[in-house]
Structure formats: structure tokens, C-alpha cells
């Protein structure tokens, strides 16, 4: 029984392959119990996918995280109000 001669996974056909033919969410028949636990990862519909299909390669994937809130900007509303409040305190002394 000869094996594949390449270095990568010998599972050549995995790009289109399914482990099972039917939808992942359904069971052999109507399930007797809730199968998907809240944090359980779902089966992917395919074993492998091209780079273009990765989340990281999507065009609209740029502005996901806001800049760190560690900024020295003292012009935001809160800081402005705070300065006013502190001035008031100062003048009350």
C-alpha cells in the first residue's frame, strides 16, 4: 500500500471534503438532546479553505480594535469637565 510522496498532509482531497455528507448542525435523526453547548465550537462545513476565505484576508477587516485608551489626550469631555470641577474646588478654598 503506497502512501503519498509529498511532505504535507497526505489528505489531498481535504479542500472539498466533508467528514459527513449532511449539515453539521443536524444529527443522524432529530436529536434527543441539545448538542451544541454554549461555548462548543461548531464543525466547519469544509476541512480546509483558501487564504481568501480567511477572516484575516477580508477587506472590511481593518478597523476592529480601537486605539488603546492610554492616551494623553486631555481634550475629551470628561477631562474638560474634570478641570472645571477642580478649578471650582480650588476657588472654594
Amino acid at each position, binding site marked *: 500500500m503506497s*502512501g503519498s510522496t509529498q511532505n504535507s498532509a497526505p489528505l489531498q482531497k481535504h479542500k472539498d471534503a466533508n467528514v459527513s455528507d449532511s449539515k453539521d448542525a443536524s444529527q443522524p435523526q*432529530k436529536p*434527543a438532546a441539545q448538542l451544541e453547548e454554549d461555548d462548543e465550537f461548531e464543525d466547519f462545513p469544509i476541512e480546509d479553505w483558501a487564504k481568501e*476565505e480567511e477572516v484575516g484576508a477580508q477587506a472590511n477587516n481593518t478597523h476592529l480594535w480601537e486605539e488603546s485608551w492610554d492616551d494623553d489626550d486631555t481634550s475629551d469631555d470628561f477631562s474638560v469637565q474634570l478641570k472645571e470641577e*477642580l478649578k471650582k474646588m480650588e476657588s472654594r478654598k
Partner: protein
Amino acid sequence: MSDQLDSLWADFATAHNEEDGYLLATTISPEPPKHDPARLYNWQRWTNAYSVQTDLRYKLQYNPVLKLDKQEASTWLEVFTAHYAFTGKLLAAEEAQNAGKSREADWSAVYEAWKEVLNALHRGYSRTDFAAWTIPCLYVVGKYLRVFAIKADANAASQRDSSVAFGELQEEEDPYGAASKNEKLEDAARQINRIFALCLSDRSETVLSRKWALYYTANLLFKTYFKLTSISLSKNILRSLAAAGTDIPPISQFPKAHQVTFKYYSGVLSFLEEDYAAAEGHLTEAYALCLSSAQRNIELVLMYLVPTMMLTRHRLPSRQMLSQSPVLEGLFLPITTAIRAADLHAFNAALEKEEEEFVKRRIYLTLERGRDIILRNLFRKVFLAGGFEAPKDGEPGPGARRTRIPVKEFAAALQMAGAEVGDGEGGVDVDEVECLIANSIYKNFMKGYIARDRGIVVLGKTNTFPGTGI
């Protein structure tokens, strides 16, 4: 006998001729393929329990189309014999289910029968009868072992419930106390572990190795342990994989489905151990690599990545990111808005509102740390608002920032932010304020000390708020 099983044997032969493991796996799958929906019924009717071995021998050993060597054919004989018995049990259970008699569906028997299929396959691999390209068969057997275990346990539970509901006496009490309500799933965990060990122990060269099933199997184990809430057992898997080192090909060479799932679970495990740096690494990779159409899985990754990034990078998800998922938006928008606005009152409200969800997903405590960060940022704003001292003689530019700050100023900021520091009579509870300041210092968010008698906080001159640049 008219051979309506042609499709099955054709697929089996093609799979061997083309070394297509996934096609091979469909021949033993509990779900019939789309092009042959009646397969399982035909399989049942094709023979009977007495003749099954003989009939199979013709198909497997005396078949000119298939070129299996004797040992391999003999092992497949075992597998299909077990599979035949399993199919009988499965169809019986499904029939009962469809007839509305769910409680009579014997999923326990289905589980045990499927386990025999697993055992036959396990023997095949142990004897190295099966080449590595066939390992999708291990995926199928492992995956459905979990499925049937969960159904069997659920069935047993509903049977117990119904007998209790009707007040029947339990005739045969389990002498050791209540049988575990996850009896079959616990057994499944042990079986899948056998598969894991089987793959780990393969000494053949990489290309021909069963090691390619390792991450899939590890993922099955993670899912099982999480469901059994024996999450710490997952660490053994990680340890085994780490110990194998370079004996296993790098994860990047495995199918992405295996990689993403593995990184998700690794990330969650790190998260639960409060190793947020590691969690960030794993979850970020899982996120970037994930199939872009797998909405639910993306949500699951972000569920943990959002609290993680909050702590490790002090970054919040953008509105744009949250708007992509109603689930995430509902969970995180109120709390992130509160943090951005340094609004403690809103923060506490947001935390409380979704408390149940957060706790269920085990992210409550991590999110709660957001409060520390709001406080830190608040104090930092006070420091920044405090202005500068006069420059020292002869030195240009503004002096150092003022480092002696009255507690009252912190109190004012806290009140503005909606902190509960009132004394109940319209004034400020100074002790409460000092407590919050002291906590921040203790947690190393702020450097300094409180000079209580003078009512001021003396802050460090350098690196006053570690990690924030001032």
C-alpha cells in the same frame, strides 16, 4: 440478491484505488451520503446476522475490483460485521424516535454497537493494516461516538425523569449511588483518548503517519471534556502534544479546520487559567485564520478575545466589529461604552445586566477587571488635569507634573464618574475614596502613597501609571 449496495461497494473500491480517505469514511458513516439516501436500509436488507460474514467475504476478499491484501480484507471484514450490527441498532432507534416513542429508542445500544466499530478500526490501525490515508475513518468514528454518547445519556436522563415523575420505585438502584448522568460521554472520552494514543504512537514516517489525525482528535477531546466540565483534563492533551515536540508536523500544515478549532480551545484554556498573554496569541490566530463565513465560530472566538484584549492591550472592540454580530453587540456594547466614557455607574449596570451570560461563559471575572482599569484611567485623568509645577530655576519648559494631589480631587473625579463614594449625607466618604486609591496602588496601576494626615496622595515622579506612557 439484487445489489442495491452497489453504490457502497463502488465508493469503497474507488476510495481504495484513489486513496481518498474522506470517501472511505463515508462508507462507514452513520449518515447516508446524498447520492445514496437509502444506503443504511439497503445495507440492513442486503444480508442478515447469520450470513453477513460470508457475504462480506465475497465483497472484500474475493472481489477482483478491490485489491486488498488478505490481512487488510480480514480487518475490514471485522469492521463491516460490527457496522452491520450497529446499523440494525441505529435504524431501530431512529424508527422509535420517528414514531414518537423517543424514550424507547435504545441509544445506549447504538452507542455500544458503534463502539464495536471503533474497536475493530482500532485493531486495524494497531496492527498497521490500515494506511494513514484512511484516517478520516477515525474522524467519523470519533465524532459520532460523542454524538451517540450524548444521545444515550440524554435518553437515560429522560427515562429516569419519567420514572420519577410517575412515582415508580427504582427496582435496581445503582449500588454505588446514582450512575453518572454522563456515563456514556465519560466512556466516549476514554475511547477517543485511545484513538489519540493510537495516533501519537505511530512511528511511521510523517507522510504515512496517523499523526495527521492528532489535532482533530485533540479537538474532539476538548469538546468532550468541556461538556463534562472536566476542563482540566484538557491540559493532559496539551502536555502530550507539547511533549511530542518535533515528532508532530507543525500545526500550520494541518487542515485549517483543525488548526482554528485547536487554537480556539487552547485560547480558552489559557484564558481560564488567566494566562491572558497566551490567550491573546491563540485567539488572535484563530480569529485571523477562521473561515469568514463561519459566523458562530467567529463569535465564539471574539467572546473570549474581547475581554482578553481589554486586559492585555487596553483595547476595546470597535463599534464596527461589534455591529457584525447581534450576539456580541448585545453582550459587549454597553460595557465597552461605559469603559470608554469612564462611567462607573454605567459599567456596573452593564455588568449586572448581562451577569448571567457572562458567568455562564466564564468571562465575568475578567470583565470585572475592567472596573480597575476605569479607576486607573480616572486617576490618570486627575493627574493629567493637575497641570504642571513651576519649572526649576534656570530650566526651560514646563516643570514636572504636579505629583502631590489632594484626595479631594480624586473624590471629585470619582463622583463625576458615578462611583458610589457618597457618605449618604451628600458628602463624600473619604475612607471609600482612599480605599479605591490604595487598591489601585496595590495592584500597581498607580505608583505612590497616601499621606492621610495631610489628605494628599503623593505620586511617583516617573512611570506614575505603569504601562501607559506617563
